[in-house]
């Protein structure tokens, strides 16, 4: 084969590869909820590798914690005992409060359902191209996870929701800071209702669709989920208003600092059952 023919063949292969990927891109524009089987396939193959690397890294970290950093264990133990004492007292008070409204059998059922409604997961990876869009967790369809389940951090603050692709042992969580995320929220003090959307670039969120004529909302006010979107249960802390700008447009421009701390996001809890359906 001559040199020119060989060059031409290579250019044709390149054109074929580029065309294949352009077709892949064009199939998704405008973007839909469902990811392609091809994308899911790659996620299925590589997410266990990521899980393995994460496990290895965690093991190395635990060696450090167990053998080198023992100094902090005593303090941690004391703090946890205090926390346990406080939580026990809180538990007794809540049980007593609950008994006023329902009988013992119903309470036992509710508490049993409540224990099964949370699934704890470790964060094993972040979004490959944008930190504020998604994270990967180490629980998947095998553990009962599906699309659109609410996810909270260890302090109970809103993290986001599960989204496709969900593999057998891993799942993707769309963060509330993603620009395609939309969560129905309201302000805690003045009950101003709107939609919380991420900007996808800086970790800030926007509280949208609050009319310019509204004068109730104040800086520093807490935003919590309203459950109007039928994905996120009501009452989860989402963020705090940091600035309010009113210009000539119909709606106010309200910046929100999410309660979620990405630097401290090692473990999350997935709400596998809507809590408001339990009571």
């Amino acid at each position, binding site marked *: 084969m001559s040199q020119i023919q060989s060059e031409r063949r*290579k250019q044709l*292969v*390149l054109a074929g*590869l*580029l065309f294949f*990927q*352009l077709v*892949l*891109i064009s199939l*998704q*524009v405008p*973007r839909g909820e469902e*990811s*392609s089987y*091809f*994308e899911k396939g*790659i*996620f299925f193959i*590589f997410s266990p*590798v*990521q899980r393995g*690397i*994460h496990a290895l*890294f965690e093991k190395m970290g635990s060696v450090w914690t167990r053998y080198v950093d023992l100094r902090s264990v005593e303090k941690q133990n004391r703090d946890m005992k205090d926390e346990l004492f406080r939580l026990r007292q809180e538990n007794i008070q809540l049980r007593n409060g609950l008994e006023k409204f329902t009988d013992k059998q119903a309470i036992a059922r509710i508490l049993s359902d409540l224990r099964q409604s949370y699934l704890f997961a470790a964060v094993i*990876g*972040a*979004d*490959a*191209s*944008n*930190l*504020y*869009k*998604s994270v*990967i967790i180490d629980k998947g369809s095998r553990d009962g996870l599906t699309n659109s389940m609410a996810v909270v951090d260890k302090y109970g603050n809103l993290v986001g929701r599960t*989204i496709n*692709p969900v593999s057998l042992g891993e799942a*993707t969580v*769309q963060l509330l800071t*993603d*620009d*395609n995320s939309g969560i129905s929220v309201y302000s805690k003090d003045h009950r101003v209702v709107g939609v919380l959307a991420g900007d*996808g*670039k800086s970790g800030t969120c926007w509280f949208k669709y609050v009319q310019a004529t509204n004068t109730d909302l104040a800086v520093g006010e807490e935003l919590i989920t309203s459950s109007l979107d039928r994905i996120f249960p009501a009452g989860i802390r989402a963020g705090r208003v940091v600035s309010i700008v009113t210009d000539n447009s119909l709606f106010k421009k309200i910046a929100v600092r999410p309660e979620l701390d*990405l*630097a401290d996001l090692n473990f999350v809890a997935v709400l596998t059952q809507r809590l408001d359906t339990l009571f």
Partner: protein
Amino acid sequence: MRDVMEAAAGILIAFLFYTLFRKISVSLSESLNFFTLAVILIGLMKGEMAGAFMGMACGLIVDSFSLGIFGISGLANTLTGYLAGYISRKVNVIPFLRNLVFIGIMASLELAVWMGMSALIFGEGIHFGKGLIFLQPVFTAIVGSLLFLGIRKFRAQHEK
């Protein structure tokens, strides 16, 4: 077969470093693109066809671990891998300084194509990681050229 195994090993190593760096520091992982580095190195050592296929594989892995449009990184990396192999066949990029500049240009090209495609499809600004993303070509070039030098020296010693 050996080429395929080397490419697969390259992908796995890039994936390992990408995951490790994400765990250590997010800033660190934003300023160094291991996948592009693997694509350019394979293009340099194995030619444009290997570079293009490696680019497609690495790019699609990046896309599958991102909520962005599936295929953008694949497209950018395929083009980068092909050009890395093609140009290195026409121009001598073996000397260290030339290699440094060449990998820097290739990494910049990948970033420019990715940003251009993202801006075109999303129609809005993209995440710059507080400007750290612009350091990507520089760090990729430094690490890449040092790695290439190391591989060359190792091979030379091995052949002796």
